[in-house]
């Protein structure tokens, strides 16, 4: 199958597999009790129990069942559903989720990754203000079915920004994400992309005293991919990948994905400098 056709089929599959029904969810999976704040992935199934009492059960071919707690919060439900549950559904269906936000340029995807709070969403919003459309926020789903190309599936999540990020980027503030979460939804300034596109580059966001763009080469590319990100571990587990299979996966991805490090001070006064570096990286002027 032509790569983008395969990715479109994967998008349809994800849409189908994330269909929701509301019904009681059992507290255990394969005899293992899944208590509040815990989750379990086993074969074709995934069970998540939130600290606030939401339970989500995904079964391949069936969809997602959600049990609502006594004090429901639809915003919190959306966060769990679009985050961990979506990543599990993707993983179980052979699609690799990575923790990244991305923009599109010239028919390709430029992704930015880093731990929570690294500024992924803020950077994507700021790049939007410079005319680059958003591809995804927070979760980037990769279709690896074509051996010659890594194709990204467009994001399913809305852009979420803190009040400070809204001020820095000039993005338009929408409703609050959830009562207990100090972030707001925002419209991506240059719109978003709804079509699958090949991955052009993965950039790691890091703190440092001076803005700089550094390339990542050799074994460091491998090491960075094998860093134990939660989503990568989930994908490996869903694919029942032993160490050898995980190594083979990273050995395929590491040479295929150009990588960079974007170092920048976390100083609002110097924010634009790092956005300029990122924009130059994306548009090929770096």
């Amino acid at each position: 199958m032509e790569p983008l056709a395969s990715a479109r089929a994967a998008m349809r599959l994800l849409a189908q597999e994330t269909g929701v029904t509301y019904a009681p969810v059992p507290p255990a999976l394969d005899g293992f009790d899944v208590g509040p704040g815990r989750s379990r992935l086993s074969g074709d199934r995934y069970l998540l129990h939130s600290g606030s009492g939401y339970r989500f059960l995904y079964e391949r071919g069936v969809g997602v069942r959600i049990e609502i707690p006594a004090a429901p919060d639809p915003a919190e439900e959306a966060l769990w559903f679009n985050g961990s549950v979506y990543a599990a559904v993707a993983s179980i269906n052979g699609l690799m989720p990575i923790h990244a936000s991305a923009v599109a340029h010239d028919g390709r995807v430029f992704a930015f990754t880093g731990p929570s709070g690294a500024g992924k969403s803020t950077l994507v919003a700021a790049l939007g203000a410079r005319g680059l459309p958003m591809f995804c926020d927070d979760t980037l789903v990769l279709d690896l079915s074509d051996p010659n190309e890594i194709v990204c599936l467009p994001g399913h999540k809305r852009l979420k920004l803190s009040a400070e990020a809204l001020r820095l980027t000039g993005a338009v503030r929408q409703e609050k994400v959830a009562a207990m979460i100090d972030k707001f939804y925002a419209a991506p300034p240059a719109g978003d992309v709804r079509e699958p596109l090949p991955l052009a580059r993965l950039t790691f966001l890091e703190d440092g005293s001076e803005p700089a763009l550094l390339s990542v080469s050799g074994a460091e590319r491998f090491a960075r991919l094998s860093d134990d990100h939660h989503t990568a571990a989930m994908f490996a587990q869903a694919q029942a990948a032993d160490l050898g299979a995980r190594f083979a996966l990273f050995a395929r991805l590491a040479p295929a994905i150009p990588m960079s490090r974007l170092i920048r001070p976390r100083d609002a006064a110097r924010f634009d400098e790092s956005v300029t570096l990122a924009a130059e990286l994306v548009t090929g002027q770096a």
Partner: protein
Amino acid sequence: MMTGLLRKREGAFAETAIDGEVVVMDLSKGDFFSLTGTAAAVWRRIDGTRDRATLVSEIAAEYDAQSEAVGRDIAAFLDQLDGAGLIDGA
């Protein structure tokens, strides 16, 4: 010390090359080694046809270095590989 022909222990590791570097993973623990320069050259030559002395003289000739210094470095590297259970004959 017992020495013989150096060979990789099949099934104990996985390897791949990226940008001229060799990445070797110890499949029993998940630890991995990044090999560059002489270490990568040594690893590539561990193929069951060379003993330690042959390896040292080949590497010394290739890198135009003194056999004694090369010998020390290679001994330390082979001990590390041996300790990780990746090779036999060290």
